[in-house]
């Protein structure tokens, strides 16, 4: 069992980079050493009672004005600490009567919710730095990120969370949540978003089995599904550059070199599905797919090209069970845009969450040390200046007797 040693001081730094400033401690040290190595020259007639002592080598490194040096070192240290912004650890109680509100929720709905839950006393906006709900309504932030950040916050460890029940966009990292959070939802009264399905088009004549397969898919997927035969290929390319593509997936079945318009379509991010006869000399790196029917894929520009390695006009290709589902699966796997879009949503019912264990909860509270540090620095600066100036005044007396060379 690993031992966890508690740190000596319950201190953490908000800006630990500034601690590099501690290397500046060398500056006053160097100045003192340099200044020391130049002796003051004075005329002194009673020199016969002074003994020129044997010079010791380490003598050069003995510091004088130690108090002054100490003050200056302290000043630099304090400045570094001030800039690093120390955080003093303190136990913050996780409270249960806290509600975090999604900023997208309307005021009337929130009031209604609060009337039904009178035990919730403190209401905050759901933000990276939660503010009281009396503050002006903030811009909606990415809930994924906000929740992940709040999951390590000790204050909101046991909070209630009120979300608008829509699809929330997700992030790259996993959603981190506190296991003690209690989730609430308010139904989104706005119209539900139409599921976004890729639009399929065929350029020229497709294989004979295409039309029936598309009919079956339309029955399964519903109204969002679109399949259009395309007559003018050049028009497609022109539109795709203007980002108003008439199709996301394009089926092409004319053996021979690929027309330039279709090459552009793929490079702009479309998915091209062809039979084995289609040639494109510049593309030669294909990856064989392990799914059936046998095919190979290559990524070209921002899009990809799926080419079947067996003749898709032959009977073994289309005479297999559940051909539409197989094709849909195979094609959608190749379309990164579609995958990203369909996967990156989560709702309150299905949270791709990772609970944050208690050990990772940061029970830190920023203690306003800044003001005290600044006061201390000002005080030390005053002391240091007064000492240095009084030294200089005494030094003026000494310099008066210094030998002047004619």
């Amino acid at each position, binding site marked *: 069992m690993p031992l966890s040693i508690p740190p000596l001081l319950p201190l953490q730094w908000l800006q630990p980079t500034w601690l590099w400033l501690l290397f500046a401690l060398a500056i006053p040290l160097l100045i003192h050493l340099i200044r*020391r*190595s*130049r*002796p*003051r*020259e*004075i*005329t*002194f*007639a*009673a*020199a*016969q*009672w*002074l*003994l*020129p*002592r044997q*010079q010791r080598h380490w*003598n050069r490194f003995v510091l*004088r*004005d130690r108090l002054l040096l100490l003050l200056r070192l302290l000043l630099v240290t304090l400045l570094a600490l001030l800039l690093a912004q120390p955080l003093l650890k303190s136990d913050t109680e996780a409270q249960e009567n806290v509600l975090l509100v999604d900023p997208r929720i309307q005021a009337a709905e929130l009031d209604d919710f609060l009337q039904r839950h009178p035990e919730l006393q403190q209401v905050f906006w759901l933000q990276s730095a939660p503010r009281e709900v009396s503050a002006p309504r903030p811009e909606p932030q990415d809930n994924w990120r906000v929740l992940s950040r709040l999951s390590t916050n000790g204050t909101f460890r046991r909070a209630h969370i009120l979300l608008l029940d829509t699809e929330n966009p997700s992030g790259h990292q996993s959603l981190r949540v506190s296991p003690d959070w209690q989730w609430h939802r308010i139904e989104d009264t706005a119209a539900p978003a139409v599921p976004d399905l890729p639009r399929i088009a065929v350029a020229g004549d497709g294989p004979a089995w295409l039309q029936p397969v598309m009919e079956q898919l339309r029955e399964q997927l519903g109204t969002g599904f679109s399949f259009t035969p395309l007559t003018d290929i050049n028009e497609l390319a022109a539109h795709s550059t203007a980002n108003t593509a008439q199709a996301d997936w394009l089926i092409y079945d004319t053996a021979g070199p690929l027309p330039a318009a279709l090459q552009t379509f793929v490079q702009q991010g479309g998915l091209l599905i062809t039979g084995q006869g289609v040639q494109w000399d510049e593309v030669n790196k294909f990856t064989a797919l392990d799914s059936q029917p046998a095919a190979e894929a290559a990524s070209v520009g921002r899009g990809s090209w799926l080419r079947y390695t067996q003749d898709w006009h032959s009977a073994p290709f289309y005479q297999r069970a559940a051909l539409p589902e197989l094709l849909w699966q195979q094609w959608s796997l190749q379309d990164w845009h579609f995958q990203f879009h369909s996967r990156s949503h989560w709702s309150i019912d299905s949270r791709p969450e990772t609970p944050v264990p208690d050990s990772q909860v940061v029970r830190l509270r920023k203690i306003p040390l800044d003001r005290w540090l600044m006061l201390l620095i000002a005080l030390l600066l005053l002391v240091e200046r007064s000492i240095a100036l009084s030294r200089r005044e*005494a030094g003026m*007396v*000494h310099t*008066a*007797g210094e*030998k002047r060379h004619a």
Partner: protein
Amino acid sequence: MQLIDPLTLAATRDLAWLSRHIAEGMLLGMQHSQRRGAGIEFQQYRSYEPGDSIRNIDWKLFARSDRYYVREADQESQMHVCVVLDASASMQQPSFTCPELNKLQYAKCWVATLCWLLYRQGDRFSLLVLNDAGHRYVPAGQGESHHRRTALELERTQARGHWPDASQLSAVWQYFEQPCQTVLVSDFFEAPQDGGMSGFAARLHAADRPCLPLQILVEAEQTFPFDGELKIVDPEGGDIPELGAHQQRDDYLRAFNAAQRALVARFAARACPLTVATVETPVEQTLRAFIAAHGRIG
């Protein structure tokens, strides 16, 4: 009461005026009673009083005025004070609080003021300035013009070299053939091995020429107020390249005070107590202390 501050002391060129100013300030309120009596230089007439010698009655005046008047003249003082001023390079030592003023300038002013007091007393005084480059001598005399001459010679004096050795001093002894008192003004910084200055004072004392010493120091020599690293330049040679003032202070003060005690003891043995003055104290104060210590002048 400080009549002249150190800055004025350092800045004023006219020693005759300055010394008169200081001395008259000292004499302020003092009874101006010169010793009058028999002498050559006429001073005043006064009425005959019982007890006066009838030899002193001016008979011609009696014939004219039918009254007895006694003729008085300044009494000629037999006292001769020879001021010996050390002009070796160590007298260049400036004050550390008032860098314009050095030991020699202070000594010049002090000597000039003393001479003014002697002149007002009617005493004769002479001046001998010594260093190893040679000596300068102002023969004995009295009166205001003699004071001015002495002041001029003082103004011309510059500090350089060392205290003269025995062969150079041999030319000086002729000035002490007449009975006189000697005032020796110096900082008495001498290497313990040569002892030329002590020998000079001892020899004067042995010849029954009392040697009244005044030591002029700078305050920093008594306190050593320095800190940090010092490079010492000794005006009489022997520079010390580097020393830590803080570490040396105790040793220095011990050695310096021991030397001072020895010096005081040597002069006390000859019944001529040493007066120690720092450049930072006013001239008149030093002069009063000197006079009080000896009780012979003033």
